[in-house]
């Protein structure tokens, strides 16, 4: 069999600034200023969501989202002049996420599926318009989004779904290879078909 050169991966990382994507992946970085009550509320929210993973199950079911991370920050690490030392007057929310697909579709998923979660995480930020309707929410994110200076992705042509599936496939393939040594041709044919059936959504 000849080895084919892989075709260029499709263009799917749409709707964002050029420096925010690498291959199939998009990075999003959003800063927002938090109202005083958020200072009390957000740490509790973070604590609870970490303790009860079920609360973020939906987020994890959306496999095109690699991760989403919310952090409250009071100051920036000091990098030397001209940066001024000291804390912010208000704490800020630092939101980072990596995902596959288009920027619009990603925010739509937040608006329509993670509606309550978005309100919980961003509700204490100044100017937050609610996740629905989507148009003002998108404008809000855009207004507070910072373009990355440099975004790097180790496997730019792969998506997180593809990587997850490949890992599943690998396990099954290793098992098949291991067991195959003890099989006669008929048994192998049957095992191979079982493997295909079992692993078809990773092939």
């Amino acid at each position, binding site marked *: 069999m000849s080895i084919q050169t892989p075709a260029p991966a499709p263009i799917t990382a*749409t709707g964002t600034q050029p420096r925010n994507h690498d291959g199939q992946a998009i990075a999003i970085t959003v800063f927002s200023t938090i109202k005083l009550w958020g200072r009390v509320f957000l740490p509790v929210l973070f604590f609870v969501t970490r303790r009860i993973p079920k609360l973020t199950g939906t987020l994890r079911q959306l496999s095109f989202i690699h991760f989403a991370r919310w952090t409250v920050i009071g100051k920036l690490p000091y990098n030397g002049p001209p940066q001024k030392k000291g804390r912010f007057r208000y704490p800020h929310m630092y939101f980072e996420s990596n995902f596959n697909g288009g920027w619009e579709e990603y925010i739509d998923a937040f608006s329509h599926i993670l509606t309550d979660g978005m309100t919980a995480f961003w509700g204490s930020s100044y100017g937050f318009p609610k996740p629905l309707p989507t148009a003002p929410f998108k404008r809000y994110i855009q207004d507070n989004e910072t373009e990355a200076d440099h975004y790097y992705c180790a496997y730019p042509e792969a998506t997180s779904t593809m990587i997850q599936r490949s890992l599943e496939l690998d396990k099954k393939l290793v098992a098949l290879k291991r067991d195959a040594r003890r099989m006669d041709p008929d048994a192998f044919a049957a095992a191979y078909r079982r493997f295909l059936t079992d692993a078809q959504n990773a092939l």
Partner: protein
Amino acid sequence: MASVQIDLGDIQGDILRAYGNDYDNTTYAFVKIECPPEQARAWFHGVVDHVTTAETWPPGEKPLTTLNVAVTAPGLRALGVSEDVVGSFSREFRAGMSSRSELLGDVGPSDPNSWEPGLGTGDAHVLLTINAKQAADHQRALGKMKEAMDAVGGLRIVYQEDTELLPGAREHFGYSDGFAQPAIEGASDDKARGGGVPLKDGKWRALAAGEFILGYPDEDTRVDPKKRLPNAPAAPLGRSGTYMVWRKLYQDIALWRRVMRDAAKLYEGGDEHLLSAKVVGRWTNGAPLVKYPDEEPRGYDPKTAEDVNDFRYDGDVDGMRCPLGAHIRRSNPRDALAAVAGPKGVIGFDGHLSFRHRMIRRGMPYGRVLPEGVTEDDGVDRGLVFVSFQGSISRQFEGVQVQWLNAGNIFGLGHDKDFLLGDPHGTGKMTIQGKPPFFLAPQEVFVRTRGGEYLFVPGMTALAALADGTAG
């Protein structure tokens, strides 16, 4: 919202409701304006007088021919519309289809450099669409159109496509086409089941009119306490208009037949008919595979069958009936996106990830049918003139083309593209889920883009303003 009254008299025809299959002949003529705007508007005035609207005709009074008008961004300028007003149109419309070729996958054999002359170059200004019941009426209407242009002068048809309905409203691959359409509030509420948004507990609802007709509430307005309307061009152009996508898609029928014939030799029971249906997601007569997975039901008529669109994918999360990569499942995944089968049933998101990516399709096949059984190309140009109407080209048409047809990730299909449309790089495949699955490979280029334009279809008031030079 349910009480939205649509002003049918202000909307051009064939958008909200199809004119119907009794119009067998359709001509698309792209006109370039080579004269000053005042002169062009004199001609435009005459055209506008004959435009058919969305109002229904009394029984028996359907006209012999219909006329509709759309404009490109260069067309707006040629009619004298100011840069400010042109700037109020969407970015992708202003950029034009050919400038988005890489995004759309119009590369290799579909590259705009090899498109039909007159398309994708900025020369196509005004699109006249003429429908006719009979060839003779059609010729008469075309004659009148040309006379009117010659009378004014400085107007030239840079590209013309004459199309004709194929027997049984089929497209060239042999599939019944065009009946799956979005259900729209105030226009086609009765089609909500299957045509609308899949909701919890098996319910459906029609889509807000503004998803397709500007100046009306859209799905975002529905959840907006302030009831803001979707982005639209500056008044009066923004009211009752819609964005139109026009694409000439060549179909290589001989290649399709050879590939499916050869692949079927390896497929269970050698069933080519089933294998091809798996690629589309429907049998040739339109019956959906989710409902009829094993056999094509006899005497099925997609125009009258109750269940032709009334289905979801929640009973088929793994694609055993209708493959995950079937054309209709990709182009309108309904409730299938990110749904997973768990021990307690399917956990999905109903239509939440798909409902904002719907489009009205009004395509027409062009070119002579390749006689049945022929598997060598006869050199005839044939395919589909793909036409879609939507409130946002980027969200609706491009979203579907880019994220769902040209890429497979959202369906868990890696980089596999829609098999029916093909892959210019020939490295893709299609998995036909089964026990065991079947792999259709290599993926050929069955469909090539031969040209296309992004257009705007103004409402009647807007057309009059364009003709009068009062559109701003």
